[in-house]
């Protein structure tokens, strides 16, 4: 039984861990906020001056900012739609009895272990390249003109690459959820004459909702900061067609060793990510309760 005294002692004992964790989080954040108000370039050290909101207005009025913002949203939503819908389908399929189930599962999960830069290079040079790529060879074999993926549909191509990397994650989480589904419930409904569609819609989907929420939340965190794929394939171009916020921070600030501008861009990215997170939690967060 916990007395008031032992509670105090317990709090006192966990305090070092809490303080350490807090410092771990707060100190870098506070320094970033502090830097974001300075005109601070690594290339002219010792000349830091306070500039107020200059770095922020500069970043927000960047001609590429609006494009980068919409691209970020399109990228996140696009990848989420693809991975969640295909992930559900794959999870249901892989849950069925079949020969070689273990091997098929490994095949499906394998892309998750490929590093982003490597997968971007592979897709760019071996598949999407309009001269030597496999898609171009296939198009030519069918007598078609090869499509220039990265020039004419850069964002869609990046969505494809990123979806390929994240589909295994969604499948894996949803598959484990499928395995905890009560088979007898399904059979009972089948005997009551429920169609396949209604069994999916009224039993399977509600059962998966919590897992889907987890997939969406975790993937959103990572998808907001997609960078390597863009750097390797298109460098954010043509124009700003595939520039997202992360890449914009890189191009506008880090390439120039501009610590102040980079910090401001980083803080804006954090704020945007939080806005997205609040919306997400409002929309689907209730699935996590109970």
């Amino acid at each position, binding site marked *: 039984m916990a007395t008031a005294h032992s509670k105090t002692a317990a709090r006192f004992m966990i305090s070092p861990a809490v303080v350490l964790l807090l410092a771990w989080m707060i100190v870098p954040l506070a320094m970033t906020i502090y830097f974001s108000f300075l005109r601070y370039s690594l290339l002219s050290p010792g000349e830091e001056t306070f500039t107020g909101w200059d770095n922020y207005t500069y970043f927000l009025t960047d001609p590429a900012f609006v494009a980068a913002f919409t691209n970020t949203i399109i990228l996140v939503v696009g990848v989420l739609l693809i991975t969640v819908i295909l992930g559900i389908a794959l999870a249901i399929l892989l849950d069925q009895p079949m020969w070689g189930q273990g091997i098929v599962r490994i095949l499906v999960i394998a892309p998750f272990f490929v590093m982003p830069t490597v997968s971007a290079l592979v897709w760019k040079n071996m598949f999407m390249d309009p001269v030597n790529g496999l898609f171009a060879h296939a198009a030519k074999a069918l007598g078609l003109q090869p499509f*220039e993926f*990265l020039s004419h549909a850069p964002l869609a191509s990046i969505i494809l690459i990123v979806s390929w990397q994240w589909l295994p994650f969604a499948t894996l989480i949803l598959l484990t959820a499928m395995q905890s589904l009560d088979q007898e419930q399904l059979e009972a409904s089948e005997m009551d004459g429920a169609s396949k569609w209604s069994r999916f819609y009224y039993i399977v989907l509600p059962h998966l909702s919590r897992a889907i929420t987890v997939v969406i939340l975790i993937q959103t965190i990572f998808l907001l900061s997609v960078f390597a794929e863009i750097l390797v394939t298109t460098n954010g171009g043509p*124009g700003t067609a595939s520039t997202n916020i992360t890449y914009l921070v890189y191009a506008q600030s880090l390439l120039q060793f501009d610590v102040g501008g980079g910090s401001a861009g980083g803080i804006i990215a954090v704020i945007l990510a939080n806005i997205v997170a609040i919306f997400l939690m409002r929309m689907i967060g209730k699935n996590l309760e109970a």
Partner: protein
Amino acid sequence: MKLFTRALLGVSALALLASPALAETITIATVNNGDMIRMQKLAGEFTAQNPDIELEWVTLEENILRQRVTTDVATKGGQYDVMTIGTYEVPIWGSKGWLVSLNDLPASYDVDDILPAIRGGLTVDGELYAAPFYGESSMVMYRKDLMEKAGLTMPEAPTWEFIGEAARAMTDKDNEIYGACFRGKAGWGENMAFLTAMANSFGAKWFDMDWNPQFTGEAWTETLNFYVNLLNDAGPPGASNNGFNENLSLFQTGKCGMWIDATVAASFVTNPNDSQVADQVGFALAPDTGLGKRGNWLWAWSLAIPAGTEKADAAKKFVAWATSKEYLELVAANEGWANVPPGTRTSLYENPEYAKVPFAKMTLESINSADPQNPTIDPVPYVGVQFVAIPEFQGIATSTGQQFSAALAGSISVEEALQNAQNLTEREMKRSGYIK
């Protein structure tokens, strides 16, 4: 037994005392190019001559190296005693006083032997701030057989007009032969290196003497129109995503008629192990428009000593060794003349052994025709052929590069791209305080 232990302890104590006096360790940051790896392999020769100096290597990929050394030198971190940097950094860092002057190298080093164009790019106000390890320029590499089939002969010093005509004549899209393979991928070291050098030969410039950007001027309009039209007519599909490596693979698989890129590529495309067209490659100087400047760039990976180091003397000894004539001979003796780091010393090109290397002469002429101190036809306030040696350039050129690759991909017009480039450069220059 006890005595033995004591003796052992005594000896090791002595060794501990003696070692700091004997050896000084210098840390060298370098890039992971073939030539640098070779230097690392041969460095035993240097430590044998200088037993009091020990070497520690930090070998990094180009972009990471640039970030690390820039951060270190700017914050006076003092992690490195010798840094490998390029012609872009040297003028900036030299004028900030971040580098040790190398004007006092011994006479045996023969500093006058360094190619004047390279030396000019590494000198600020008469002080040499870095010693060139290898130098490169850009030139035209073309397919002799395709040129012949098109009924044309490549002059040694072509004009852009001829390049345009030849590229269109060589192109045979049904058989996947593309006359013009140029860099199109956005980036300050990718399409902007090519376009800035090309623009110089069209009489264009980045800034006037008051640092006002010049993209909306006639010369840039002409340059970009020529580039976009030529690549649309005679370039490979997806040219707006092609950088050095993509074009290299296109050329090696026989899909390019002409490729204008770094002189170091010559050794790759003439190597029969990697290239299907090795025996059909010809070389020519980068094109011009008759205005007096050619469209080739100049770059030199160089060794410099940061001003903060306490081991400047040992570092200087190493820099002098690695960029000396003796080092070139050492490489030649171990690996053959074709693997000697090119483009730094006149004496190398006077060597009859080296003259046998097929691309030696054209490399030298290309380097000599670039002048980083006076890169453009009109006077400009900056140094650098394919770049502008100011700290802001990397960021600005990456953004303008995106605009120009968009123009090439056809998602915006040439006029829009130039107007956007003009606006964003002006914005950045105002913020940085160049334009008052």
